[in-house]
């Protein structure tokens, strides 16, 4: 019965189905898994499980706890790459259900790990199981949305991927609220919060499982006619996921995503100490936390705005804007710091973070333009390995160069300047890769009959 409900053939929409019912289904999943961005709210409480108010002997260290998030992100990238083909085959409902079971199950296994005080169970629970839920959940609705919105693929995927950014905005205050609600003299409330969040997120993701539909094979939006002379960078052919790997276009897009994400993720990781150190004494820790919140809002908003704009500007032009404007802003930031202009400094980083989010949300539509719709979800899954690579590269570059500078006598307020210029270099590499993008050669196109 359950299996029948989850099967792809039972998710085909009936004639007259309103396609605007599908984006909230995708949002229900992305808003849930976006919790991952707010996992750091648990880092400190997890180091005080025994001591409750402070860490005591036997409590886990911060160094060990941060691995939970790192493992989850590593498994996000690898599961998206590994299960992309399966997601395409079984359809969005079964894959969303699997994502819900993995993601929520990750919380429950982790809660059990807290109960037994076994850190490896958190690595396995939230890290491995939850990470697989993140990866499968992230790519589940992508190709479905692209098929429902052939006229506005950027807007449709932008709406869903905006949810991933928005998920952190919900999860951070929710985690704090739940921990303070469950806090007692004997517990700091993390265990109970994990169980509650596991249940809440499972139910919320079920909204997506219930509501998602795929369009019939011959469905088109009413009155929409595919352009007779599309742009050279918008294909009407298809490339399979196994063939896409072998094209230079896949690796150019991999570099485009990796460079764009590396630049943004490096800033996100150090935003709070950076603004405090650059404007030494003028920005209090509470105000710096406000800066991080503002960046999260622009990260989320940029996902929808830029992806929607890409439907009008074209995908390659949108990334050109990301890289050119990014280079301009990153190279100006050190001057803004020296001038002591907090408002302009904040404004520059808000635009940078909007383009970081925009890079994530525009890439599915760019893949659709280059490789067609046949395996776009699976190809997207494989491209997300660029995110995993950037997740290591960005923060590492940022902190390593800063420490090197301070170690060589550079004042803290100026230690970020060199990093900004290095980010410009990365964006230049991305710009060149994007500039080199050409249509996929015909020899890579799929000409077979079986489109499963």
């Amino acid at each position, binding site marked *: 019965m359950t299996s029948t409900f989850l099967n792809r053939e039972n998710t085909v929409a009936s004639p*007259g*189905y*309103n396609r*605007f*019912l599908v984006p*909230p*289904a995708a*949002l*229900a999943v992305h*808003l849930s898994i976006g919790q991952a961005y707010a996992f750091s709210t648990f880092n400190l409480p997890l180091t005080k499980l025994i001591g409750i108010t402070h860490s005591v002997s036997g409590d886990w260290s911060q160094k060990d706890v941060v691995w939970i998030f790192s493992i989850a992100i590593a498994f996000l990238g690898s599961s998206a790459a590994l299960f992309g083909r399966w997601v395409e085959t079984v359809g969005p409902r079964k894959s969303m259900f699997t994502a819900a079971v993995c993601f929520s199950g990750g919380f429950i296994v982790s809660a059990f790990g807290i109960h037994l005080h076994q850190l490896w169970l958190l690595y396995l629970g939230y890290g491995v199981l939850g990470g697989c839920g993140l990866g499968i959940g992230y790519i589940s609705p992508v190709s479905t949305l692209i098929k429902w919105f052939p006229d506005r693929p950027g807007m449709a995927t932008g709406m869903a991927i905006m*949810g991933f950014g*928005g998920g*952190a*905005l*919900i*999860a*951070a*205050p*929710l985690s704090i609220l739940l921990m303070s609600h469950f806090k007692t003299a004997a517990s700091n409330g993390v265990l109970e919060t994990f169980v509650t969040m596991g249940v809440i997120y499972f139910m*919320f993701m079920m*909204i997506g499982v219930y*509501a998602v539909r795929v369009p019939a094979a011959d469905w088109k939006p009413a009155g929409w006619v595919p352009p007779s002379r599309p742009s050279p960078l918008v294909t009407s052919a298809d490339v399979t996921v196994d063939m896409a790997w072998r094209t230079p276009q896949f690796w150019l897009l991999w570099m485009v995503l990796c460079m764009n994400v590396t630049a943004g993720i490096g800033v996100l990781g150090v935003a709070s100490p950076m603004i405090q150190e650059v404007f030494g004494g003028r*920005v209090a820790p*509470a*105000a*710096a*936390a*406000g*800066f991080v*919140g*503002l960046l*999260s*809002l622009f990260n*989320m908003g940029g996902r929808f705005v830029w992806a929607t704009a890409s439907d009008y500007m074209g995908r390659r032009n949108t990334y050109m804007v990301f890289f050119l404007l990014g280079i301009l802003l990153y190279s100006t930031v050190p001057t803004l710091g020296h001038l002591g202009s907090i408002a302009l400094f*904040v404004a520059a980083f808000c635009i940078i973070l909007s383009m970081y989010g925009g890079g994530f949300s525009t890439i599915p539509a760019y893949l659709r333009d280059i490789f067609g719709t046949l395996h776009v979800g699976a190809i997207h899954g494989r491209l997300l390995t660029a995110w995993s690579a950037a997740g290591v590269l960005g923060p590492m570059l940022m902190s390593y160069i800063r420490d090197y500078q301070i170690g060589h006598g550079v004042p803290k307020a100026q230690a970020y300047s060199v990093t900004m210029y290095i980010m410009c270099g990365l964006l230049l590499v991305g710009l060149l890769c994007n500039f080199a993008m050409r249509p996929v050669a015909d020899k890579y196109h799929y000409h077979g009959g079986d489109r499963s």
Partner: protein
Amino acid sequence: MKTRLVILWLAVGIPLAWGVTQTLHNALKLFR
């Protein structure tokens, strides 16, 4: 169909609006 559309959008919109409000409240500390 329209009722379902409204309910679904509210189901995802309300938590998102709550999260945005909370974050915005926090972000405003930067300008105080």
